[in-house]
């Protein structure tokens, strides 16, 4: 262990909370919901000795609007929830995106729809990437697949949020949130960029700040829409992140993120043992989606199997990326059922027989 490293065995949710403190989070607002209640619990435990605020709100609707207020006031701010609670935040998220406030939002996805189950799921992919809220806006969506990434993406998330004045969503799931793994905290320089636009009181030396998402004249509104689009283009250009595993010589490709990417990784290993040249493309940013690399891989592989813990959502983005070049299919389990690598492998082998 190096001097500036701090190694712990932690749940994903706790690692995320710890990382937020280390990343200089000023405030957290949240409401308990399984499987992510550990976040608020961890933070309230740490609060007396460290310099930040954690407040239990009366609801998710209140949480997201407290985030709005705090972000508008220039704070580094965060909330987290799970599927039903995340649904309740959609109006607020749309406001935040429109007012261009940086903040970190987390959805630890559980099985739905409805009250559903507390088991892990990836059923909220569409909601995360296409907009659960109204209007044309985008969240930068980060999908961790380990406890380490639950921590790392907090640092990254805050930075990206500030850089683009855009809300960042970490889309995790109940398994990554609840599981324990080793997590390493490096000592880092936390730099917070100035936020002259924040409402900190109209000090005499600057113009006053107004945070709003109201643009009643269509001309003004469209200007804002176009400004947002420009920013999104920028993000699509700069911030696509993904991981390639054994894609170099791959005949077949698995595409998966988060927990299902962990499982798919094992499938790659199992299949390679059996002589099948399989690779894995793991989107790390679900938006912007790594369409470019997938399109290129489509020239090399014979088919792609998208493995998701849902009824088939990311597959649409994969198909859009591939644009008909190769066959793309979906294998998924739902409702909190987590397929074993063997399960997936079996279905993968069925799939390649159809090619």
């Amino acid at each position, binding site marked *: 262990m190096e001097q500036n490293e701090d190694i712990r*065995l932690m749940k994903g949710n706790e690692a995320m909370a710890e990382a937020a403190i280390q990343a200089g989070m000023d405030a957290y607002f949240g409401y308990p919901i399984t499987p992510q209640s550990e976040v608020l619990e961890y933070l309230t435990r740490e609060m007396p000795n460290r310099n930040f605020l954690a407040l239990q709100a009366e609801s998710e609707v209140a949480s997201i609007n407290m985030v709005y207020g705090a972000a508008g006031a220039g704070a580094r701010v965060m909330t987290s929830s799970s599927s039903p609670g995340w649904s309740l935040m959609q109006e607020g998220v749309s406001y935040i995106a429109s007012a261009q406030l940086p903040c970190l939002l987390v959805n630890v996805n559980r099985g739905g729809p409805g009250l559903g189950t507390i088991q892990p799921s990836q059923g909220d992919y569409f909601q995360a990437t296409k907009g659960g809220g109204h209007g044309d806006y985008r969240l930068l969506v980060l999908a961790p697949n380990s406890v380490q990434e639950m921590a790392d993406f907090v640092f990254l998330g805050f930075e990206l949020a500030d850089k683009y004045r855009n809300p960042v969503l970490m889309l995790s799931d109940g398994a990554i949130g609840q599981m*324990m*793994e080793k997590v390493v905290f490096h000592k880092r320089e936390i730099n917070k960029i100035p936020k002259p636009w924040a409402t900190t009181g109209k000090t005499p030396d600057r113009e006053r700040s107004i945070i709003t998402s109201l643009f009643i004249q269509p001309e003004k509104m469209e200007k804002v829409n176009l400004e947002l689009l420009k920013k999104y283009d920028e993000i699509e250009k700069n911030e696509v992140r993904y991981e390639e595993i054994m894609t170099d010589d791959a005949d077949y490709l698995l595409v998966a993120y988060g927990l299902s990417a962990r499982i798919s990784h094992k499938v790659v290993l199992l299949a390679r043992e059996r002589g099948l040249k399989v690779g894995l493309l793991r989107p790390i940013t679900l938006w912007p989606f790594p369409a470019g690399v997938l399109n290129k891989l489509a020239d090399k592989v014979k088919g792609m199997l998208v493995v998701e813990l849902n009824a088939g959502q990311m597959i649409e983005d994969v198909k859009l990326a591939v644009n008909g070049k190769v066959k793309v299919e979906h294998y998924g389990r739902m409702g909190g059922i987590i397929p074993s690598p063997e399960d997936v492998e079996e279905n993968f082998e069925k799939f390649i027989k159809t090619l």
Partner: protein
Amino acid sequence: MLNEEIIIAGFGGQGVLSMGQTLGYAAMVEGKNVSWMPSYGPEMRGGTANCITIVSDSTISSPIVSRFDTGILLNQPSMEKFESRIKPGGIIVYESTNILHASERKDIGIYAIPAADAANKLNNVKVANMILLGAFLEKKPIISLDGVMEALKKVLPERYHNLLPINRQALEAGAELMRQAS
């Protein structure tokens, strides 16, 4: 190369989850990769609980596997649920005060450890899980008992450090029981 995939399962109050955590922590302190994945039943309390703990020298791909090298099983329903999911050549270590009907598979090692009884003898029913852990580590010494103690020292708040000796005793009692059972 070490890659041990373990299922630990029992009732909610039997210390199933913390057994996995202790094991995981000790393995991590010894420089290994670890993943620990819990699963709870729908019951408020007293329901079933289990955790998959993986200890490996290399990166752990899936934290969720469906077949295991080892099962440490603490109640009858868990025995029924998991016996068939132990890989050939694997082992089951089970709490035999509690479980009356054990697996009858021939292709795996099956070890009955009367941990609850032994815990009663140590005057602390709650250390039954440590007894089972000791038994498991006796059979598969993937980490040393000292390593476990080191881990416990780190993971327990100071105010519980008075419990370290009894845990040490439990681990050793388990190891002894395993030597008898083997």
